[in-house]
């Protein structure tokens, strides 16, 4: 058949497609958001991973990168945005505040965003380097490609 035909399973093809074009929803809350902007700029380019299109509307996004501290007032809004994203969707919790409450163990913050949304990858750091966020994205991409056809459980 030659070199112009390639055979694969449908699941692998869909997994490859979904994994390489993960569009994040902009959810920059605090300091980690600035490092997220660094990830999108030229020296640490997230566009080469297919994630350049950071959508403003959650309805067009697959990935929510919660970057920053989630306060009590913001928590219902975060949940609303998560609910508005269509399936399949993933969440990366970026930074210590989003993962566990970080430096701030007090009344005002949600001690970890996983109290209200299911999280796929946690990125430690305060704030994490842009390369850490890329690493998390790569881990997520491996997982998406492995899931293939079936929706996320």
């Amino acid at each position, binding site marked *: 058949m030659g070199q112009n035909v390639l055979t694969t399973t449908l699941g692998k093809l869909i997994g490859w497609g979904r994994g390489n074009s993960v569009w994040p929803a*902009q959810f920059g809350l605090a300091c980690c958001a*600035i*490092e997220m902007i660094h990830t999108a*700029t030229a020296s640490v380019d997230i566009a080469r991973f297919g994630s350049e299109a950071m959508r403003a509307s959650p309805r067009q996004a697959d990935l929510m990168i919660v970057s920053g501290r989630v306060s009590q007032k913001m928590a219902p809004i975060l949940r609303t945005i998560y609910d508005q994203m269509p399936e399949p969707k993933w969440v990366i919790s970026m930074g210590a505040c989003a993962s566990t409450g970080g430096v701030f163990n007090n009344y005002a913050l949600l001690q970890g965003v996983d109290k209200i949304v299911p999280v796929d990858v946690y990125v430690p750091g305060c704030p994490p*380097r842009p390369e850490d966020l890329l690493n998390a994205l790569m881990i997520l991409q491996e997982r998406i490609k492995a899931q293939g056809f079936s929706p996320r459980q």
Partner: protein
Amino acid sequence: MSTTGSSVSTTTQGVTITKSGESGAFGGELLTVNFGPHHPSTHGVLRLIVDLDGEQIRRIKPVIGYLHTGIEKQMEALRWQQGVVVTDRHDYLSPPINNLAYALAVERLMGVEATPRAQVLRVIMSELTRLSSHLVWLGTSGIELGAMSMLMYCFRERETILNMNEEISGYRMHTSYIRPGGVMADATPRWLEMVDQFVRDMPGHIDEYESLLTMNPIFRSRTMEIGRLSADDAKVLGATGPMLRGSGVAWDLRKSMPYSGYENYDFEVATSDRCDCYGRYLVRIKEMREAVKIIGQALDKLPDGPVNIDDRKMLPPPREELETSMEAVIHHFKLFTEGYSVPAGDVYVAVESGRGENGCYVVSDGTHKPRRVKFRSASFVNLQALERMALNHMIADMVAIIGTADTVLGDVDR
């Protein structure tokens, strides 16, 4: 709907909104639009409830608190030296400047003054931070008004500054570099080389940014005569920083009430008489140039000597001494378990950050934890000027106006 003259209140998600039921110019009702908190252009989680008459803004009610972190309560639960880490994170675009306000306040209460070398290093870090904060402002304002390449260029320079931060303190952003008693660590030779190279390269980069925006007709038409704030209004509303200087008032804490040796440097206070968004843009560009000048002068002036004061009751002894001196071991133990106690009293220290007057009001009751730490936030006060600036503009100008106020929501909400 005929609700003219009556009000309707609803509480959703913890926020109460009261619709006024007023009517607009053509007899229709005012349209209430919710702007945020999840919005690409609000520079963070700011929510604005805007009453529109057609496209014109009639009333704005900012709703804040979406990033309230309880920083002031957290500081009361931490010891004096632990609090430095938390002070980084309220105005997250200028961490060393926040550290400086807190460190100066604690030093005033303790009755000590930092060493000359530490003061010069503090000035260099503050000016580098002012540059990196203005670069974020320029990049994000540019991209919101359509100039996408501004973001890429500004963040390229910001990477250089963050690399310098990492060289001297190990952290890119929240350095916790300036501490009561001195600074975290002395400058390395590589850091001095990096700063020197930066001072030579940066003016060329600022020329690049000006060549993209200053005479750009689209940028000019989106920022000239938009967001007017007269000098009297700015003074009455308590605005500080470029919001005040962009209206022609030459008030800069570094010149008017200098701290940390700023009286020894030769620089100009940037002002503009335009009172609009374009004027504030010119002020910030000039401030960036003056910051590079100050760093150059500081590098030449950097004296030799220790960076930390020699007070074992405040700062730990060097590790070599722990092997030979029992007293050093006791000091070390006391500092790392209970921490030092600050004499009772209160003090307010204000420093000039990229957005205006950031200050730290510290109240001590004589124990090893503060009684109250209040951060005077420039963005909190500047945000109150938003309504005055935006009235009767179009809703599309809202983006330029929020950008020009340069508020950091972490500072507003603490």
